[in-house]
């Protein structure tokens, strides 16, 4: 992940649940691309066909509430969307998104200061700038930042297992 990047904003409301992000019947589709084509289908039918890699989701409170389905962040990440800003995140979604190498930014202010289509600039662990205004953002804890930097938990675990093997030798 770049230290500084910009993307176009998709604005989403409060309490977007995991069934809304990807319905249960689509979540069982193993092919990630096909599964991702149903992402946010009921809320934003145009999302899956028009979202561009690098776009940024900006949501209200409790984003990703509901089920533990990891297909929710996966169905977003498969479109090349790796950053979500929200007033708050549901806890399992939060873990799952980080495990898929996504950067999640919790901010009360940013969602109130940007609209659909705005360009938002993220400086990791430092600030977010939109519409000429900058907002400080919280630092990601080190153990989680390592997972994001490795591109997700799969690579991070491979590294950890290799490390454990070396230590055992």
């Amino acid at each position: 992940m770049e230290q500084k990047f910009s993307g176009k904003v998709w604005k989403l409301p409060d309490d977007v649940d995991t069934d809304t992000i990807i319905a249960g019947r689509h979540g069982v589709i193993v092919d990630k691309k096909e599964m991702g084509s149903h992402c946010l289908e009921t809320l934003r039918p145009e999302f899956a066909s028009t979202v561009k890699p690098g776009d940024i989701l900006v949501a209200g409170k409790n984003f990703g509430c509901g089920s533990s389905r990891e297909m929710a962040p996966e169905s977003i990440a498969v479109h090349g969307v790796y950053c979500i800003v929200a007033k708050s995140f549901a806890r399992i979604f939060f873990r799952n998104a980080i495990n898929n190498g996504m950067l999640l930014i919790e901010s009360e202010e940013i969602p109130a200061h940007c609209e659909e289509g705005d360009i938002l600039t993220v400086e990791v662990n430092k600030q977010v700038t939109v519409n000429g205004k900058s907002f400080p953002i919280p630092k990601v804890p080190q153990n989680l930042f390592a997972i994001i930097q490795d591109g997700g938990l799969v690579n991070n675990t491979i590294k950890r297992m290799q490390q454990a093997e070396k230590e055992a030798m």
Partner: protein
Amino acid sequence: MGYTLAEKILMKNTGEKHLEPGNIVITHPDAYMMHDIYTSFLKRALNEMGVKKIKHPEKAVMFLDHLMPTNQATTDPEHYRDGIEIVRKYNIPNFHKGEGISHSLMHELRYARPGTVVTATDSHTTTYGGAGCFCTGIGHTEMAAALATDELWMKVPQAIKIVIDGELPQGVYAKDIILKILGDIKSDGGQYKSLEFTGSTVADLSMQARFTIANMALEAGAKCGLFEADEKTAEYYDMDYNEISWIKIDADANYEKILHYQAQELVPQLSCPQGVDNVHPIDEVKGVKINEVYIGSCTNGSLEDMEVAAKILEGKTIAPHLKLVVIPATNHVFKESMKRGYIQTFIKAGGMVTHPCCGLCCGQPYGLMSDGEVVLGTNNRNFIGRMGTKKSLIYLSSPAVAAASALTGVITDPR
């Protein structure tokens, strides 16, 4: 210095002498549960990580429950096959196929035990908190990593103490308690937190009623919903109470907030379309016409729930236009309900009884609703489109409200 239940259980698991909210700890879970929706994804993650064997196969439990018997021929059989493949490849001894709902079986079969840490690839993993078990959901990639390493990081949560005192009025149940709380604290009121339940009402609740409340703590965004251990807990697990008597809230534990409820003031509650925290007392909702009633799920599919519904339906007939689907949560509940005549009562009343599984709750195997149709369920979630099309409507209630409403065809007060 006193501790919350979450702190105590995490200290026991990690061996730490002191923990406080915000600390990040590495736990070694005592049980890992996974189920059929995620088997194909779990297999992929295990393969991508190159996991040849898992650290403790004896701690792992696999269930096939969500997609039983089949919803979509194009996807579901692959999930069964992958579930079986994982069990074989990694020598997982605990495998349950079509025997009931994973969460109900996790405590019925005593996999999830008091004072332990349990994780599962499902959000309603909070259920076993009813027995003082620190249990919380994760995704499939994290499950793969945890199975491979026997490690799972946890942030020690802030906690909210919920004190409920007094006697529940007739016709008011555990489901009404948790719906009332959800309506008050809303869908993010427990986010990342441990909700810890205590008080004289809680002490009087059965184990099944405690599981009902813990199950829905998740709907407030909670990491876990925990109950203290008592003689009832010990009896349910056939354990010596002295082994688990430490699972108690310390008087001087640090709670972010303390909420108080008086049980005698409670009335039947309904979660209304479309959001679990859109909760209204029955007086504001009664009379709404319904097309389908679903009694079951990991929230309210226990033997006690079957009993409550059967007593209301006994010798009566459901409304002529209505579909009633009853799903006992496990084979044990099913067999016991048959022995006691509840199943016969449901059938005589005009209901359909199907085999133990997640059923209508996850909108997978059957019972889907179409535009404008209204379902009243005893399950835990009424997100848009969860049980059918996005224009179908979902109400959630106790089994008593559900059964009384099945008789009239409109939402009805069971009292």
